[in-house]
């Protein structure tokens, strides 16, 4: 088990540097930020001076060396656009994103498990059909469209909820709802179908033969076995959730990492885009590692493997 974690950790480190390098070079291949920063009436010398000031006159290799060196020292550099330390910008934006994403993700998971398990338990009932309907609807409708429609209905027409911002708890309802809507339908469907497979198995029959009440059969014997494939999907869903956060923050003008990333990308603000990508990569890799470790908790067969 310890070896398993060490191997996974090493894989994470490799993946992390891969992501870092790809981001670094892709950004530079996309164009030169000095052309965006310079006014049209700048002379060639002025543009050159700007480039030198930003360090963009050096070769990519040199730039990478400087960047890696400062990252190791915990310095993410300065925003080209806002002339502000990137560390401070991230420090402002990250908590806002987490405040939105963590509760949304947790809520989506809890709801998918409860709804999925109940749908499987009462298979073919009106309840099951409702869950199936919501799942198909959720997977068919694009999340950003649903978010805009929700704003239109609840904020503009009914005026129940605020349009954008994050000042009061009411501001959280629509963005959280949108994020839940991104992950809930697929997850719920997966929980339902794995649960149906498990409920059909011989050990569930055996649990009933023992005389166990139905709730123990479902929530103890069946659910624990039905956890494994949804767990895999949690790891895979995460990048999608990050993307969802980018879109959601943009729609609801949420001052988080997503909005920061979009603004920085359009301005070719290299240090900011790099920092946001790095932080996101660390989060996604870290949670994937946790998912891998939690397999071992769910499935004893993994726990006892020697790898």
């Amino acid at each position: 088990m310890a070896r398993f974690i060490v191997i996974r950790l090493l894989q994470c480190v490799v993946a992390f540097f891969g992501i870092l390098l790809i981001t670094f070079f892709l950004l530079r291949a996309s164009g030169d930020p000095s052309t965006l920063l310079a006014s049209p009436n700048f002379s060639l010398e002025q543009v050159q001076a700007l480039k030198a000031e930003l360090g963009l006159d050096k070769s990519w290799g040199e730039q990478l060396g400087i960047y890696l060196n400062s990252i190791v020292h915990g310095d993410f550099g300065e925003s080209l656009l806002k002339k502000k330390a990137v560390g401070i910008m991230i420090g402002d934006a990250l908590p806002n994103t987490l405040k939105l994403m963590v509760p949304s993700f947790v809520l989506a998971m809890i709801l998918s498990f409860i709804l999925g398990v109940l749908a499987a338990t009462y298979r073919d009932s009106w309840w099951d059909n409702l869950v199936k309907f919501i799942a198909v609807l959720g997977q068919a409708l694009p999340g950003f469209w649903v978010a805009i429609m929700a704003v239109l209905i609840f904020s503009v027409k009914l005026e129940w909820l605020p349009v954008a911002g994050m000042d009061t708890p009411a501001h959280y309802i629509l963005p959280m709802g949108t994020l839940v809507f991104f992950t809930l339908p697929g997850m719920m469907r997966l929980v339902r179908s794995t649960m149906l497979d498990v409920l059909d198995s011989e050990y569930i029959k055996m649990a009933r033969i023992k005389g166990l009440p139905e709730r123990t059969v479902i929530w103890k014997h069946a659910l624990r076995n039905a956890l494994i494939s949804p767990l895999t999907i949690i790891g895979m869903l995460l990048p999608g959730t990050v993307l969802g956060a980018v879109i959601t923050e943009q729609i609801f003008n949420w001052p988080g990492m997503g909005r920061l990333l979009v603004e920085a990308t359009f301005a070719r603000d290299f240090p900011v885009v790099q920092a946001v990508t790095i932080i996101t990569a660390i989060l996604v890799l870290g949670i994937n590692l946790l998912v891998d470790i939690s397999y071992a908790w769910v499935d004893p067969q993994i726990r006892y493997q020697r790898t």
Partner: protein
Amino acid sequence: MSNIVLQVEDLHTSFFTRAGEVKAVDGVSFYVREGETFGIVGESGCGKSVTGLSILRLLPEPAGQVVGGKIIMEGKSLLELNPKQMRAYRGKMISMILQDPMSSLNPVYTIGDQIGESVRLHQDLPENMVEAEVIDALRLLRIPSPEMRAREYPFQLSGGMRQRAVGAIAMSCRPRLLIADEPTTALDATIQAQYIALFEDIQEKTNVAIIFITHDFGVVARICDRVGVMYAGKIVETASTRDIFKNPKHPYTKALIQSVPQLDKKDERLFSIEGQPPSLLRLPKGCRFYPRCTVSMDICKEQEPPEVKIGENRSVSCWRVK
């Protein structure tokens, strides 16, 4: 004679499907005494397993339902119990062993947990006693080093050991009745013989009544005291194991016994019964075995044969038997 533990009278179980009512069990009666093994033999799909599940009232609802008859366990009518009372019978008074040992154990809990769960549920014992009961159940099934096995997961055990572990779960509360649904089918021949010997030993120790469901007359000869031969939802012949082998009365029983491979006979081909059992959706008007019977008469096609009692312990449903 010892007490009757379970009496099934005229049991009817149907599955209500889109195609119509499937009469899986259609008027089955039998009993089983303390310390006795009653075998239910028949081809797959004849209603053996459904009979077992009907007794435990664990049919796949809402499709499967007991539509008639009585199931009496030591004076109590099981069909009249409410769900909670019925649960108290399951695992404690009546237990069941399913066919496939590989999949009957929950892969994510240890053997000890799975046995202990039954013990905790049905017996009001302090925790340290529960553990002793678990080890005891494993010993009863002659599982070597039970203390170690109790802490292991199903995937760490061999097939034969898993089947024993399933037996230990079933026997953990010393039930009065054990329904064994083809428990030896998935095991290889040597392990099968050991397993059957083990059951005889357990029966001697605990005096449990066993309903042994099988399609294998060879297994019947080894373990059963009495046998009911089942065909298309009905028991067509009931007799003691000795009588049924010495003097089978029903043509179906005769044919089944003939199709058991025997080492001392050097026939070129193994005997097999022509044709297929009838669809339970559309049963023939007369005798169910009529289409495949080699000695059928005109009346067999028109009317179902009544059950004829021969002596104390024997009955046959065939027009040839008077």
